[in-house]
């Protein structure tokens, strides 16, 4: 049994040796390079584009502007270069195409664009009077007004968080090649099947004419889920010029055309009895929207699904600004979750109830919004396991009570929670005549360990060693499978992979027991044991290797299976220690423990890595990360990794990950639930709560930089 074991990544070697080929590594004969020219105003019109100097650069094949760009539409996104209107700073205003990337870039720098600018609105504070309620963004359960009236204690507070950018280490890249009306695209995509659909509809060709490949990804975090307009434009350019075309975005370009996490404001009101029982939970949020899209999502799910409260009101407001459209970014629910989990901490101090105990008292097995029972929920175990490992019971609740040298020490905690997708998926498993196994499915490994986990699943289902199994992903020629987003890959696709492998096992066992040449001949198929690459009789006195059965059969055995899974909700509890030096307002996170209910854990190493990664990102989110917009120009001022700060190793302490590891009975993914996004959600609140415990200072505006703690 390898499922559950901390199996090393099967793709690790290919990645560290450079064997793994990413989209930007694809170079095709006769290929052209496209380079984007980005606009420098946020609102207004392009009045002219002078391309003469750009066209004079040697090697330049074409320069596209709104006047001559291929005509394209998108049902999902605003498509640039189709007119003169500018909706956000950093919008694509021209594309240069040349025979080398350097020529294309030099030409791009020489394109001169003039504008008729208008004054933009960059941040929520600029448009407070324009906040509105988009359709279907309000949920009311019970009677929140009555619930508040019945409360003995209430807390109302405002929280805010800045925009963030995904910043996967691999930049977005796209390589398009046409063969008649057949298109092949190497695309940094979290969903090759979705991408195939988008390309097909943009070019009005059958989906089967499009092949999208993304065998490896250097992270995505949601930013690579949709196909963005630049990829469609690059493919259109390849078609128009009759040559393959490649476009690789620069880091700076990724700050305006591949989405971001919106700026948010939250107002959370909690009403409770003296014993801590919640009587009302009112969560009002305001999200930045763009001029061209009203894209929203259920970011306040935590307020609707986490705690037993009879009266809940969530209202997700929007405000349109002259900025790019925001979309999902790892753990879309975390901004709202930060408000909720901080407000609960504030309530715990008002009540004089320990923050863990307060959450325990409001624990529920039932979804408070729908009344449905969760298929399984071991959140109480998480509180206990996490608190015990952390030593929480030794905590003196009084803020500022622990000092070590110059530093105040604080302990804080928060619940972690995120729901996950489950999309119908299919997978193929084939055992070759030599006994080796290949599995193919058109989902992706975005860096989370999909290759490794599916290798384990197939090996276990068949009873063969890991090194006898090869998994291939990220190609629309494979059976269609889920988008790698919304924590959904393992939850969606594992069942199909397992079913296909089991079907192959059944077929091979049948081949053995039905053939007189096999030592297993005549045994009941359902009694055969498969292990270590062998088929055994129940008493293990007789055996035959898969290899021998397959050699005799002389042909591959193959199965393609499909499966659906249920959506789910993975929860946990995170505990942190911070040290705050009050002389400088300097905060260090010095300890972290997280305990999680993710259903069955498929691989303790890759799951543990999700915790380390989530915790690390949570530290950055809490202490430093933010996209800075110039308020007058709505232009990003820090579009690079030397000024857009993420936590580095020195910011990250040892992080202990604990799993309840109990299978979810309804999960077709061998009992696993989706988990990727859960272990970041509570970290910013836990850190803020720990800072309060250390110092008595409550900061409600992310990030908690030292200037806010002086």
């Amino acid at each position, binding site marked *: 049994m390898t499922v559950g074991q901390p199996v090393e990544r099967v793709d690790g070697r290919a990645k560290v040796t450079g064997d793994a080929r990413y989209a930007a590594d694809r170079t095709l004969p006769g290929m052209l390079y496209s380079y984007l020219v980005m606009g420098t105003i946020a609102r207004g019109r392009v009045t002219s584009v002078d391309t003469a100097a750009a066209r004079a650069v040697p090697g330049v094949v074409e320069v596209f502007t709104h006047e001559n760009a291929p005509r394209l539409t998108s049902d999902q996104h605003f498509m640039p270069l189709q007119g003169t209107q500018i909706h956000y700073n950093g919008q694509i205003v021209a594309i240069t195409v040349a025979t080398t990337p350097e020529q294309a870039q030099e030409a791009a720098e020489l394109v001169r664009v003039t504008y008729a600018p208008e004054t933009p609105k960059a941040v929520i504070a600029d448009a407070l009077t324009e906040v509105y309620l988009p359709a279907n963004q309000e949920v009311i359960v019970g009677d929140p007004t009555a619930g508040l009236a019945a409360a003995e204690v209430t807390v109302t507070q405002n929280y805010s968080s800045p925009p963030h950018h995904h910043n996967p280490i691999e930049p977005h890249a796209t390589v398009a090649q046409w063969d008649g009306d057949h298109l092949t695209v190497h695309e940094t995509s979290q969903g090759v099947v979705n991408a195939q659909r988008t390309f097909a509809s943009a070019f009005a060709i059958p989906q089967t004419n499009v092949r999208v490949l993304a065998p490896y990804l250097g992270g995505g975090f949601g930013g690579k889920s949709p196909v963005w307009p630049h990829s469609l434009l690059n493919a259109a350019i390849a078609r128009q010029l009759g040559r393959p075309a490649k476009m690789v975005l620069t880091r700076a370009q990724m700050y305006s055309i591949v989405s971001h996490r919106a700026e948010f404001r939250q107002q959370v009101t909690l009403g409770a009895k003296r014993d801590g029982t919640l009587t009302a939970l009112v969560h009002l949020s305001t999200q930045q929207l763009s001029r061209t899209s009203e894209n929203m999502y259920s970011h306040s799910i935590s307020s609707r699904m986490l705690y037993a409260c009879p009266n809940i009101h969530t209202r997700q407001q929007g405000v349109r600004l002259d900025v790019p459209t925001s979309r999902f970014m790892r753990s879309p629910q975390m901004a709202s979750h930060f408000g909720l989990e901080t407000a609960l901490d504030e309530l715990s101090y008002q009540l004089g109830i320990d923050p863990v105990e307060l959450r325990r008292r409001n624990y529920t097995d039932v979804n408070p919004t729908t009344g449905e029972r969760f298929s399984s929920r071991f959140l109480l175990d998480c509180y206990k396991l996490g608190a015990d490992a952390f030593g929480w019971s030794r905590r003196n609740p009084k803020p500022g009570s622990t000092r070590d040298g110059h530093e105040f020490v604080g302990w804080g905690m928060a619940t972690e929670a995120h729901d996950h997708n489950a999309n119908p998926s299919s997978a193929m498993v084939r055992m070759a005549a030599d006994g080796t196994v290949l599995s193919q499915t058109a989902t992706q490994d975005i860096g989370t360990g999909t290759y490794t986990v599916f290798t384990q699943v197939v090996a276990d289902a068949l009873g063969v060693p890991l090194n006898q199994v090869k998994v291939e992903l990220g190609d629309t020629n494979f059976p269609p499978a889920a988008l790698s987003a919304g924590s959904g890959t393992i939850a969606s696709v594992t069942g199909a992979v397992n079913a296909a492998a089991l079907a192959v096992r059944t077929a091979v066992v049948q081949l053995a027991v039905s053939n007189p040449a096999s030592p297993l001949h005549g045994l009941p198929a359902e009694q055969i044991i498969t292990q270590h690459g062998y088929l055994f009789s129940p008493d293990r006195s007789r055996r035959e290797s898969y290899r021998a059965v397959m050699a005799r059969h002389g042909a591959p055995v193959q199965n393609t299976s499909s499966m659906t899974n249920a959506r789910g909700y993975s929860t946990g509890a995170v505990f942190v220690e911070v040290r705050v030096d009050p002389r400088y307002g300097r905060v260090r996170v010095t300890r972290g423990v997280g305990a999680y209910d993710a259903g069955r854990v498929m691989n303790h190493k890759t799951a543990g890595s999700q915790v380390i990664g989530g915790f690390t990102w949570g530290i950055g989110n809490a202490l430093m990360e933010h996209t800075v917009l110039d308020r007058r120009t709505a232009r990003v001022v820090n579009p690079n990794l030397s000024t857009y700060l993420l936590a*580095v190793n020195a910011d990250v302490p040892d992080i202990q990950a604990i799993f309840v590891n109990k299978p979810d009975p309804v999960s077709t993914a061998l009992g696993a639930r989706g988990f990727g996004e859960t272990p970041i959600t509570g970290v910013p609140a836990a850190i803020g709560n720990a800072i309060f415990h250390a110092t008595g200072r409550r900061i409600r505006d992310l990030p908690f930089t030292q200037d806010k703690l002086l």
Partner: protein
Amino acid sequence: MKNFTYAAPRNVADAVRLAGQPDARFIAGGTDLLNLMKDGAQSHGAIIDINGLALGDIVQRNGVIRIGALARMSDVAAHPAVRRSLPVVSEALLNSASPQIRNMAAVGGNVLQRTRCGYFRDSGTTCNKKAPGSGCPALEGENRGHAVLGGSDHCIAVHPSDLAVALLAVDAVVLTDRRRIPFADFHVVPGTTPDQETVLGHGELITGFEIPVTPLAARSRYLKLRDRATFEFAVVAVAAALNMRGNTVRDVRLTFGGVATKPWRSPEAEDALRGKPLTTTTITEAGRALVRGAVTRDHNAFKVDLVQRALDGLLRDLGGVR
């Protein structure tokens, strides 16, 4: 980025001659120059690679430590003579950038690195330092990282080097192919010409730095405050060197990073301490003297407070004041 020529001279005379071409630039570690060229903040037709010149030595002789311009940040930080006699230099370097960058970057390039002002490094934005007369968007825009000392209506960008702050505290001298420049005279405030950052002439080559070994420099320390634990520029930095006789400050150097448009020495703060006992009162007075002329903008006023706190903390640690 446009095409450029590349030359790798083997001696100083050739290097200086080649650098006389109108749009030539030296390259040492390239850790700043290449970023500037890729970001479109600078553009050069000729790149003169000086890594073949014999300017990498660190030697102590006749009471002076001489550091070659091509000595790598990591080598200088680890050098026993530097660690013993110029601790502030070693500490400033070890608090700079990352090990990878410190292994590549040379100390000559370090003191010439350019500001991290986001507007300066964005080819899509106007900036007086990039294009004199085009305007300074930081004045009314995002200026949390910007200077409160030494700024002008033309530019308030911070000089980002940690090493430069330390060298200023230990009375370093810049050696070039043609002259000796006291470190205090090397960098200039922006005034009306923010594109001018030093007194170095076009094509003038830094060959090294000379630093006297003194009791003052031997008791020196660097404190850097920043938005993450490492691999990040200073929000506020202080270099202090202290020579005490009993409880009295015999001599002191106080220099600052993160708060000023050039590596900043504060004679006023030093005067508040020199010849006086090191106490809470005198330390506070030194901090007040430092920021007396500070000019704050929308987002950087906290630096006035933070730099005084940093000075206070560092002087207490260094002077053993409780």
